């Protein structure tokens, strides 16, 4: 891809004005609603004197997050690491495999149907088995993340690589383009927006996968922290971990969306 494909200010100007305004409205609306809900939560907890081990007030959650900040940061880093390594591993394996499946009729008729069938298996249910096979370190968590990310990416990539419009394939064939030329110039760029759809689905699964892995057995990570603090009735800390997990998920999702905008500026936006 060349530098010229990055949007000129000219074209963002005339079409982005309307959506930008409505996005700003949506963000404002959501923020106001969120603040209102948190305030309501605080008031209800105080009014009915709900014990903090059952449902802590937002203020108490904030307080305990400050109090435990260094632990929260350490455990967040562990979960983030497992998430990112598992996700990267899934990309590194599923995209080349998708290419192989698309180009090899043998793989298409042998491995791919099995992969599709395996997709419906709940991957998180393997987590205990992974603990049995590879212990309680970081690796089994990475493997769970890998498994939950692998399928959405390979499916999206495969469908993207086969999404080239028929007339375009005919045009390319009429020019006797080589397979490599067809792949580099047509197929892969066509697949890119599809791949990013898969990546965005995968990254949200990735955080869940890491937490499930930690639930099954570990000594660190936010999933571990939730488990331990609930068992010790330190519910505010569990909620604090939950807040961080949510923030992590959202930030990762938007990081992928941002990369998508830079890499595939032609992709349809929603």
């Amino acid at each position: 891809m060349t530098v010229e494909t990055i949007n000129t200010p000219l074209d963002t100007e005339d079409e982005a004005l309307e959506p930008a305004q409505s996005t700003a409205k949506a963000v404002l609306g959501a923020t106001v609603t969120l603040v209102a809900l948190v305030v309501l939560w605080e008031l209800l907890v105080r009014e009915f004197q709900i014990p903090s081990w059952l449902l802590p007030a937002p203020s108490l959650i904030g307080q305990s997050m400050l109090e435990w900040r260094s632990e929260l940061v350490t455990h967040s880093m562990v979960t983030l690491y497992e998430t990112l390594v598992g996700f990267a591993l899934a990309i590194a394996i599923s995209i080349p495999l998708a290419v192989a499946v698309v180009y090899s009729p043998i793989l298409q008729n042998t491995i791919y149907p099995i992969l599709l069938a395996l997709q419906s298996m709940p991957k998180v249910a393997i987590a205990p088995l992974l603990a049995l096979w590879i212990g309680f370190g970081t690796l089994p968590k990475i493997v769970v993340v890998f498994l939950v990310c692998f399928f959405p990416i390979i499916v999206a990539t495969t469908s993207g690589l086969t999404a080239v419009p028929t007339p375009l394939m005919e045009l390319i064939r009429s020019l006797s383009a080589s397979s490599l030329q067809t792949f580099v110039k047509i197929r892969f760029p066509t697949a890119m927006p599809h791949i990013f759809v898969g990546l965005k689905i995968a990254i949200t699964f990735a955080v869940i996968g890491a937490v499930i892995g930690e639930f099954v057995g570990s000594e660190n990570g936010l999933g571990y922290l939730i488990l331990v603090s609930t068992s010790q009735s330190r519910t505010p800390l569990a909620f604090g971990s939950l807040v961080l997990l949510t923030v992590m998920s959202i930030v990762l999702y938007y990081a992928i969306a941002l990369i998508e905008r830079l890499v595939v500026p032609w992709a349809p936006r929603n």
Partner: protein
Amino acid sequence: MLRPSRGKLLFDGTPLLRPTHDVGIVFQEAVLLAWRSVLDNVLLPAEILGLDKKSARARAMALIELVGLAGFERRFPRELSGGMQQRVSLCRALIHNPSVLLMDEPFAALDAMTREELCFELMRIWSADKKTVIFVTHNIAEAILLADRVVAMTPRPGRIARIVNVELARPRTIAMEFTHAFQSYSEEVREVIYRGQAQGAGRA
């Protein structure tokens, strides 16, 4: 691309067994590459065929100017109207200077006014650089306006029913559509097509 169902496909007297590079193709849809600018879209066949970059670029710029898109070289397909996209795909079909231009209902997806405009545009481009154009259309008036020879085909099965030679003077004008000669050509073609069924395909 497809093997002939019967008979032999000859190209300049020699049988055609594999795709030839000496044709340019325009489809019903422009099928431009969304990630390439107008100029890079036009240059695609030149890249695949490994033509000299400098001269291909110069030719692309000249073609873009010829179809009236000068100044739009750096724009992307999504910034163009349907008619403009189809002009780009015409440039792409002509970039490697093929001797035959295949057009498969190229204007069918456009509105009536753009369609008419592009017909005259095509004739103007053709008069600047005369090639054999095989133009498939369902529009009888379009066929007669553009063609020297209209090959009328029957609907299902698609067989050649009659070849009509159109002897209208060139350059052709919109006024010719209302002449007696034009009307009688049009009736001749229509009669062949509608003899059997209600639907028809025409070829020019």
